[in-house]
C-alpha cells in the first residue's frame, strides 16, 4: 500500500505545473538516505532540486572535540566510548600523528564503539576500576537518551564528553544569512518527534518558506515534497506534518524534561561553520562531576578552534550548508572515498557524501566511472 501511495504522490508532483526552478532542502541524514535509496531524484521533474543540508551530527562535530577525545583516549587510563561513526573522522594533524579514534585504538588506546547510550552504563558497570569517557556527539535525537541516562543516575566512573547540537538554529542561521540557498524545507522527522513540530514554525512565520515534516518512507517523503511544492504554487504556507504517526504536537515531553534537567543550551561551534548561537547542549552545573570537559580540563585547548576547520581542499563545510552538492567537491570520489575519507561527510552514514557515494543519486548513471562525474555536477 505504501508503495502505491508513494507512486500516487510522485504522479501528483509530476502533474504540477512548476513555472520555475525550486530547491528543497532536507536537514536530516535519514531523509537524504530515503531520497537516495528510493532513487527519488531520478524520478522528479528537472526543475525540482533536492539539496541535503545540515543533517549530519558527525559532520559538524567540532574538530577540537574529536581531538580532545583522541588525546584523552591516548593519554589517560580510560575507556573511551563513542558512536561508531565518530571513530573514523580525521582531525587536522599531520599524517605522522594519530588522526582518528580508530588510529588511537590501533595505538593501544581502549576505544570502543557503541550503538546505544545504554551501553555506556553497562561498560561502566563492568569496569568499575576504570574511568569511562562517553563521547556523546549527536543531534537532539541522540542527546535526549543521553540526558535520560544522566537524569536516571550515572555510575561514579562514567564521564560525559558532550557534543550535542540542536538542528533548528543551523537552519535559522542559513535563513538569516540572506542567502539560504533553498526555497522550501523538509523538516526532520525524528527531531520533531522529540522536540515537537512547533520548533519549525519560525521557518514559515518569519521567513515565509514552505515547510513540511517528513518520515523515512518514500511515501512520507514524497507527500512532504508535494506539500511544499503546493504551498509554493498556492502561496498558502503552513507547517505540514507528513509524519503524523510519530510526530505529535508538543513532541516528547519526557525527553524534553530530561534535556532541561541535565543540560543547558549554549552557543556552540559547528565544524567548518563556526559558532551558532543557542545551538548546542552543555552539561548543567549540577553534573559537573561527570563532565569530562571539567574533570579533564587540562586538555582543553582553545587554540585548536583556529585550526579546527575542514581539511585542506575539502568542501564538507559547503556540503553541510547545502551550498554545493557532494559531487561538486573536487575531492569527492577521487582522494576522498569511504575507505579513505578526508572530510567527515564521507565518513558518517548520515553524511551526504557517503550517502551519495553509496547510492549515486546522479542525473545519469549511464556513465563509465564515478570519477568522470565529478565535472558533471548535478546543478
Amino acid at each position: 500500500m505504501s508503495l502505491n501511495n508513494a507512486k500516487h504522490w510522485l504522479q501528483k508532483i509530476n502533474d504540477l505545473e512548476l513555472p520555475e526552478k525550486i530547491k528543497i532542502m532536507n536537514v536530516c541524514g535519514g531523509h537524504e538516505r530515503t531520497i537516495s535509496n528510493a532513487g527519488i531524484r531520478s524520478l522528479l521533474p528537472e526543475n525540482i532540486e533536492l539539496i541535503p543540508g545540515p543533517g549530519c551530527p558527525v559532520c559538524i562535530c567540532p574538530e577540537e572535540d574529536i581531538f580532545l577525545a583522541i588525546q584523552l583516549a591516548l593519554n589517560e587510563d580510560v575507556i573511551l566510548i563513542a558512536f561508531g561513526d565518530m571513530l573514523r573522522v580525521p582531525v587536522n594533524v599531520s599524517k605522522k600523528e594519530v588522526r582518528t579514534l580508530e588510529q588511537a585504538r590501533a595505538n593501544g588506546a581502549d576505544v570502543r564503539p557503541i550503538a546505544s547510550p545504554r551501553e555506556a552504563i553497562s561498560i561502566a558497570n563492568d569496569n568499575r576500576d576504570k574511568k569511562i569517557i562517553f563521547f556523546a556527539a549527536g543531534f537532539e535525537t541522540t542527546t535526549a537518551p543521553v540526558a535520560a541516562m544522566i537524569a536516571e543516575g550515572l555510575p561514579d566512573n562514567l564521564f560525559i564528553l558532550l557534543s550535542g547540537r540542536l538542528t533548528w538554529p543551523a537552519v535559522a542561521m542559513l535563513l538569516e544569512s540572506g542567502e539560504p540557498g533553498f526555497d522550501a524545507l523538509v523538516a526532520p522527522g525524528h527531531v520533531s518527534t522529540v522536540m515537537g513540530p512547533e520548533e519549525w514554525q519560525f521557518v514559515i512565520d518569519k521567513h515565509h518558506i514552505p515547510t513540511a515534516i517528513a518520515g523515512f518512507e518514500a511515501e512520507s517523503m514524497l507527500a512532504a515534497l508535494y506539500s511544499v511544492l503546493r504551498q509554493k504554487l498556492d502561496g498558502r504556507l503552513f507547517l505540514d506534518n507528513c509524519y503524523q504517526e510519530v510526530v505529535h504536537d508538543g513532541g516528547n515531553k519526557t525527553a524534553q524534561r530530561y534535556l532541561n534537567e541535565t543540560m543547558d543550551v549554549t552557543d556552540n561551534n559547528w565544524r567548518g561553520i563556526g559558532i551558532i548561537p543557542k545551538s548546542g547542549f552543555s552539561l548543567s552545573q549540577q553534573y559537573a562531576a561527570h563532565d569530562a570537559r571539567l574533570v579533564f580540563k587540562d586538555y582543553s585547548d582553545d587554540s585548536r578552534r583556529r585550526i579546527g576547520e575542514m581539511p585542506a581542499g575539502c568542501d564538507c563545510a559547503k556540503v553541510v550548508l547545502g551550498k554545493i552538492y557532494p559531487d561538486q567537491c573536487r575531492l569527492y570520489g577521487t582522494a576522498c572515498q569511504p575507505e579513505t575519507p578526508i572530510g567527515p561527510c564521507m565518513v558518517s552514514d548520515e553524511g551526504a557524501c557517503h550517502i551519495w557515494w553509496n547510492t549515486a543519486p546522479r542525473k545519469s548513471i549511464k556513465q563509465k566511472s564515478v570519477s568522470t562525474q565529478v565535472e558533471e555536477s548535478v546543478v
Partner: protein
Amino acid sequence: MSNKITLSHGNGGKHMRRLIEDVFAKHLSNDLLNTESDAALLPIQNQQLMTTVDGFTVQPILFPGGNIGSLCIHGTVNDLAVSGAIPKFITLGVIIEEGLSFDTLDKVVKTMAEAANEAGVKIVCGDTKVVPRGQGSEVYFTTTGIGYKTSVVDYSTKLIKPSDKILISGSIGDHGAAIMLAREQFGLSGNLKSDSANVISFCQSVYELEGVRFMRDPTRGGIASVLHELNQATGYGIQMNEADAPVHDEVTTICDMLGYEPYYLANEGRVVAVVDASVAEQVLAIWKDIDHGENAAIIGEVTEQHQQVVLQTELGGERIMHEFMNLG
C-alpha cells in the same frame, strides 16, 4: 566428566580420546571415518573431482534456524554445488576455546551430522585442538569439501553475455538478519530464522541445462557482492529490479531500523544463477517446484546499457548499488 571443555581435552591423551569418541565419533561416524587412522581412504573411480576449503567463525554459534555445525556443512557443500559438483566428502578441523560446554558442542556436532546426512556427504577425517580461553571464540571449524563434477557446463563468468538473466532461489538476507537479531547488542527479538540450508537440489536441477552460465551462493557481502563480482569479471552492467527481489517484511524492518540494506546481508541457503534469457523461465519454474523454492525469482539482468551495478528501485527510480565494504 567435567561439563566444560578444558585444555586437557586437547593434549592428546585420554581426555582427548573421550572428547572425540563421545562427541564427534558418536554423531559423525560412517564407513569411511576411522578415528584410529591418520588418513582416510576415499573410494573414487573415474570421477572428476572438485574441492573447496572454508572456515567458520560465526558468532553467536547458535542462532535461530541453525548453528555453526549445520552452517559449516551447508557452506562447504554449497560451494561445491554451485560449482557443478555433487558433494561427497568433508574433512573437518575443529578449534575449541577452553570453557565451551560439552552440551553446546554436542548440540552443534549433532546438528552438523544431521546436515551432513541431508546433504549426502560423509565426514571422512578430522582434527581437534583446544586453545586457552580468550584465544578463540567458543568454536571454529575449517572444512575441505570434495565432490564429483556433474554439470554439463564448466560454470564461469567468462560465459556471461548481455541480456542474460539473474535468478535467486529464495528470499534475500534472512541469515544475516537472523544473526543480527541473535546478537543481543541490538536488544531486538523476532521470529526470523536463518536460511541456512544446502542448495544441492537447486543446483543439481539445472546441471543438464546448457544455458546456465554461472552460479554462486551469496554468503558474506550478500547478493550485492555477487552482482559486483559479475560486473567486475565481465565488464558488463548489472541491472537489478528491486520490485522483483524477494525480501521478507521482517528483514526489511530490521534493515530499516539498523540502517542496513538486505542486499548486503549474508545468505546461507540461497543460490544466484546467471542463465541465458531463453532458459530463465524454465529455471525459475524448476526452482519454484523445489522445497523452499517458492520465493525464487528473476531479479535482474546483464546489460550493455551501462557498466555499473544499478538498482531499479520499487518506485521506478535508478541508483547505484555500492560495493560492500566492512569498515569495522
